[in-house]
Each structure stands twice: as structure tokens, then as C-alpha cells.
């Protein structure tokens, strides 16, 4: 148990280290000078002014220091929650930019991941070994998981948004609103959240349903299920047990899928102009704002790591086998 966690922590620590290092490394070996593009954007005509600005920004971003120094500074700054200053959104600190976007992204990802997981698993479990459902739910599930996130998102935006006019297609809340905690505002938030949520939810749903369906079939064929049916236990009980055991691999699956789901969320956000990290990343890419890109990347890595860690803990809580130290090797 202790070992399980220390091992996990080691992996997380290592992952983080690697991620941070790669993250720091890549932009510094890439062509293109962010300061140059920043200066170019200012559209200053006089060469002298340009030089002055360039020197000023180089100094500001610390590009004039030796590389190792920059690397060390990077770590140091990071631990103080300082991800640098965004180039695209100069002079906003990256952390401020991210802070503004994170609630939206989390508000989108957390419910869609959890709900699709819960509902998908239930669906899959329910459909397994029931011919009629199996033949209807599953094909739909396959189609859903095979859909590119953004395709579904755009279709939804078009059909339910532009054509039917049921939902707004852009923004986190009405442009006529100012944030406050009134009911109108919350409803408005939900209204804007629905479509992006739905597109994430639907794609993920199919995957979980199929996974669960296959998993539970194995479980229903397992020895303990056979034993229970030999003792005449009702199918309900057997299914319940099978479900619980089939859910365990799905929990690990959740951890594995998180990265993918986050990616899906990013694309979806872009389609719906949802003011989360996705749109931010897109802009950061388009504007070659690598401080922002690094910041968001780190944020995502951290988020995924933390989520993974939570999942690990949950896993230990629900699966007695891990606690007995047997599943250690699976970790």
C-alpha cells in the first residue's frame, strides 16, 4: 500500500519533471523569435524604436541569459506559481490568463467526464447480454466514439444552435450578462454550457458503454458469477456484482483516457468559442505565445496528474485487491 503510493508518486514526479523539461526545451530550439513577432505586431515604423523595444522585451523575458540559467529560473518561477508573462496577451501574467479560463474548462470537463463515465457504464452494463439493447445501443455507441469531437460539436452547434435556435453557439454566458450569482445568470451559464457539454458527453459516452459492455460480459462469465447463478441468485444480484467488478478496469481506463478527454474538450471549446483553455491554446499557438502555451500545457499536465492520483486513490478504496498489495504490478 505504502509502496503502491510511493511508486505512483515517483511516476508522477518523474512525469512532471519530464513534462516540464520537454515543455521548457522545445520552444527554445524552434525557429522564430517571439519577441520579433511581438515587436512586429506593435507595428512601429522607426527602426530605433524597434531596437529599443526588442532589447526591452528580451530583457523582460530573460532571453539574454544563458540557457541553464533560464532553465533554473523556469523551475524556480514555476514553484512560485509564476509561469511568466504571456506574449500574446502581454503584459498579462500567464497564471492570470489561465485562472480566467480554468473554471470554464473544468466546468466542462469534470461533469462530462464523470457523467459520461457513469451513464456510459450503466448503459453498457445494461445492454450486455440483452440482445435487443445490445443490437441498438452498441452500434450507436460505436458511431459516437468514432466521431471526431469537433465534427459532432459543429453539427450540434449548427442543428441545435443556428437552425433550431435552442442554444447559443458561442461564449460562456450571454454577452448581455455580467457574472453574478443570480438564478438568471446560472441558468444562462448552463444554457451556454449545454452544447459543448453534450458533444463531449456523447462521444465519451459511447466509448464507456462499449468498454463496459465487453467488460461485464467477461465478468458475467467469470467463476463467481457462475457460482452465484448455480446457487440460484437472481440475475439482478449477479449483474450488480459483475458491474462492480467490471467498473474497476473502467476506473483505470478513466485515468488512461483523461488525456484524450482533455484534448476533446479543447477542440470542443474552440468550436463553441467557449472561454476555456482550448480557445486559449489555439490562440497561443496561432500567436506563437510559448509562455502561454507552456503554462496551459503545464496546467493540463498537472490537472491530469492530479486527476490520475485521485483515481488511483479511488481505485485503492474500491478494489480490495490493491490493498492486499496484489495489483501493485498493474499500476
Amino acid at each position, binding site marked *: 500500500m505504502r509502496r503502491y503510493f510511493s511508486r505512483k508518486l515517483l511516476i508522477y514526479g518523474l512525469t512532471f519533471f519530464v513534462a516540464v523539461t520537454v515543455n521548457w526545451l522545445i520552444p527554445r530550439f524552434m525557429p522564430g523569435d517571439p519577441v520579433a513577432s511581438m515587436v512586429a505586431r506593435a507595428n512601429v515604423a522607426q527602426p530605433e524604436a524597434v531596437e529599443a523595444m526588442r532589447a526591452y522585451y528580451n530583457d523582460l523575458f530573460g532571453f539574454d541569459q544563458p540557457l541553464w540559467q533560464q532553465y533554473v529560473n523556469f523551475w524556480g518561477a514555476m514553484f512560485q506559481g509564476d509561469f511568466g508573462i504571456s506574449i500574446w496577451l502581454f503584459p498579462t501574467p500567464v497564471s492570470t490568463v489561465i485562472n480566467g479560463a480554468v473554471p470554464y474548462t473544468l466546468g466542462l470537463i469534470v461533469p462530462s467526464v464523470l457523467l459520461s463515465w457513469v451513464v456510459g457504464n450503466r448503459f453498457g452494463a445494461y445492454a450486455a447480454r440483452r440482445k435487443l439493447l445490445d443490437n441498438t445501443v452498441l452500434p450507436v455507441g460505436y458511431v459516437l466514439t468514432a466521431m471526431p469531437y469537433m465534427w459532432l460539436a459543429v453539427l450540434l452547434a449548427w442543428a441545435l444552435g443556428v437552425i433550431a435556435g435552442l442554444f447559443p453557439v458561442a461564449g460562456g454566458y450571454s454577452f448581455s450578462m455580467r457574472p453574478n450569482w443570480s438564478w438568471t445568470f446560472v441558468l444562462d451559464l448552463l444554457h451556454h454550457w449545454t452544447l459543448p457539454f453534450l458533444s463531449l458527453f456523447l462521444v465519451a459516452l459511447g466509448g464507456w458503454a462499449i468498454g463496459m459492455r465487453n467488460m461485464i460480459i467477461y465478468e458475467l462469465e*467469470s*467463476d*463467481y458469477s*457462475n*457460482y*452465484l*447463478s*448455480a*446457487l*440460484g*441468485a*437472481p440475475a*439482478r*444480484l449477479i449483474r450488480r*456484482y459483475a458491474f*462492480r*467488478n467490471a467498473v*474497476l478496469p473502467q476506473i483505470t481506463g478513466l485515468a488512461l483516457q483523461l488525456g484524450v478527454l482533455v484534448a476533446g474538450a479543447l477542440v470542443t471549446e474552440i468550436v463553441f468559442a467557449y472561454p476555456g483553455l482550448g480557445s486559449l491554446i489555439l490562440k497561443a499557438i496561432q500567436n506563437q505565445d510559448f509562455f502561454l502555451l507552456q503554462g496551459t500545457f503545464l496546467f493540463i499536465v498537472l490537472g491530469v496528474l492530479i486527476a490520475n492520483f485521485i483515481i488511483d486513490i479511488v481505485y485503492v478504496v*474500491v*478494489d*480490495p*485487491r490493491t490493498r*492486499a498489495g*496484489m495489483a501493485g504490478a498493474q499500476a
Partner: protein
Amino acid sequence: MSLQVSELKVYYKTLKGEVRALDGMTFELGDGEILGLVGESGCGKSTLGKSLIRMDGRMRHVGGMVVLDGRELPIGDDRAMNDFRFREVSLIPQYAMSALNPTRKLRRMVTELLRSRGAEVDTAELERRMDQVGLPREVLDRYPIELSGGMKQRMVMVISTLLDPSLLIADEVTSALDVSTQKAVARALLGFRESGYVKSMIFVTHDIALTHHIADTIMVMYAGRLTEKAPADAIVKAPRHPYTKMLLDSLPEVGVRHADRRLEGIPGSPPSLLDPPAGCRFRARCPIAGDECAQDPPVAELAPDHHVACWKA
């Protein structure tokens, strides 16, 4: 008579055709009787056990019937069988090591199982039975993986007999255990009959010596058919069927040495059950087979309670 099986035929559906795993079994089992079932691997022992309680998807009840305590068991009807399971017929599976839901504590599992069958848990009774097989009570608050193989085996025994079934089927419950655990488990089974937790029992194994220790009657099967059935001692001491004889002859005893006495196996191998030959199925390997063996030998009661299916016996 608690159990009467007559002309039972159970086949497996396979790609190549039907495997006639049970091809006309007829036998009876009295109240309080323990029937040891032996025979070469693949002769249909497990199939018989499964037929009596739960057939799997590939098994087909082709003919014959099973009567338990005067009521016919609807063995071909999975739903109808449910009423009988656990209460009338119960099972200790071969796979006892993995028969317990790994993610439930035992107490909870037992409670839920019983409740689902409309019974309440009598904790005192449960603990008494656990004591009887030498299981400490704390076991109930553990997960199955926290138990050793023998403990799981015994826990399954306790669970399977909680509703005092009339017939208990124990399929190779000891073959994975080492001798000392095996002994304890076998003893416990006997104890269950003594305490009346079960009325009668079918004990499937390929260890004749072990069967001899706990069974009242031994039934020998060969290729989906009954070959001989008699009180345990009679089978061991005075077997009538050539197959039984040869099987016993090939059993080494502790202390028997090759140098002293060379034992011999039965030459040849059992027929395929896909398309078994007509007549006595042991004919091809039988040293004394004659022309009459081309006909199916009837099961004859040669001595009281001693049934043999052989023309030459």
C-alpha cells in the same frame, strides 16, 4: 430415494457436432448417501454435476429425467431450476478458489446472497458451521483474497450448504489442495452430512483412494456412461467391471515400488464422444471383450446395490 436419474442424456453443441457427454445415465442416490463419482478424465463427471444444477449455454438436455425428493428437476429450464438451486440442489464448484466475488467482504456477500433467495442470515448458525470447518469468525469480515486456498474452499462449502440442500454436488473440490488440506476438507464434508446440513452428496474426483474414504457408494463412469456402481468397499475390494479393475490396478500405493511390483496402465484411449462407437464403449481397450460387447451392455444389479454394465461381469 432422494435422487433418481434415469436415461439422462446431455450433449454439448460444438462446431463439429454434438459431444455426447452423458449418454443415458441411470442411477439412484439414497437419503444420506454420499456417492463418489470416478472415471477417466473427460468421461462426463463434471457434466453430470452441472446437469443436476446448472447447465451452461452449450449444454443441451436431450433426454431422460431427474427426480429429486419426488419432484422432477426441470434441468433443461434454467429459470424453473432456479427455485431448486441452493435450497434443493447445491454445488461446491471445482473453481472454489475463484468462486467468491473478490470485491465484497464475505459477510456482506453471504447476506446479499441469502436475502436474494428470500432467506435471512442466521449469524449464529453461520458461525457454528464455520467453527465446524475450522474457520475463524473474522474471516467474514475479510475479502476473499485475504484467505488461503483451503480457507476459501471451506468458506464456499459453508456458503453452499447454508440452506441445507437435499443434494450437494462437490466437483473435484480437493484436487488442487495438498494432502493435509485435502484431508481437512474431506473431513468437513463428512461432518456436514453428520450435522444434517446436506442429505446426500455427489463427490466427484479422480482420486479413488480419497473417494473410498468418504463415499458410501462409488460410481464409475466411462465415456458418458455408467460402468459400475456399488458400495465403496465393494468397488475397491471386489470390482466387477474390467474397467474398474484395471483402474484400481494402476493405482500405486504409498510404499509400492516399481522395482517390487510393476503396475500397468490401461492401454489405449477412450473413444471420442462426438461419435461414440456402438456397443460397450470400453470394448476397444478391454482385455476380455467378446462379440457380445458389440451390443450395449445393460446395467445389471449383480449383487444388492452393485450395478454393473458389462456382458462379462
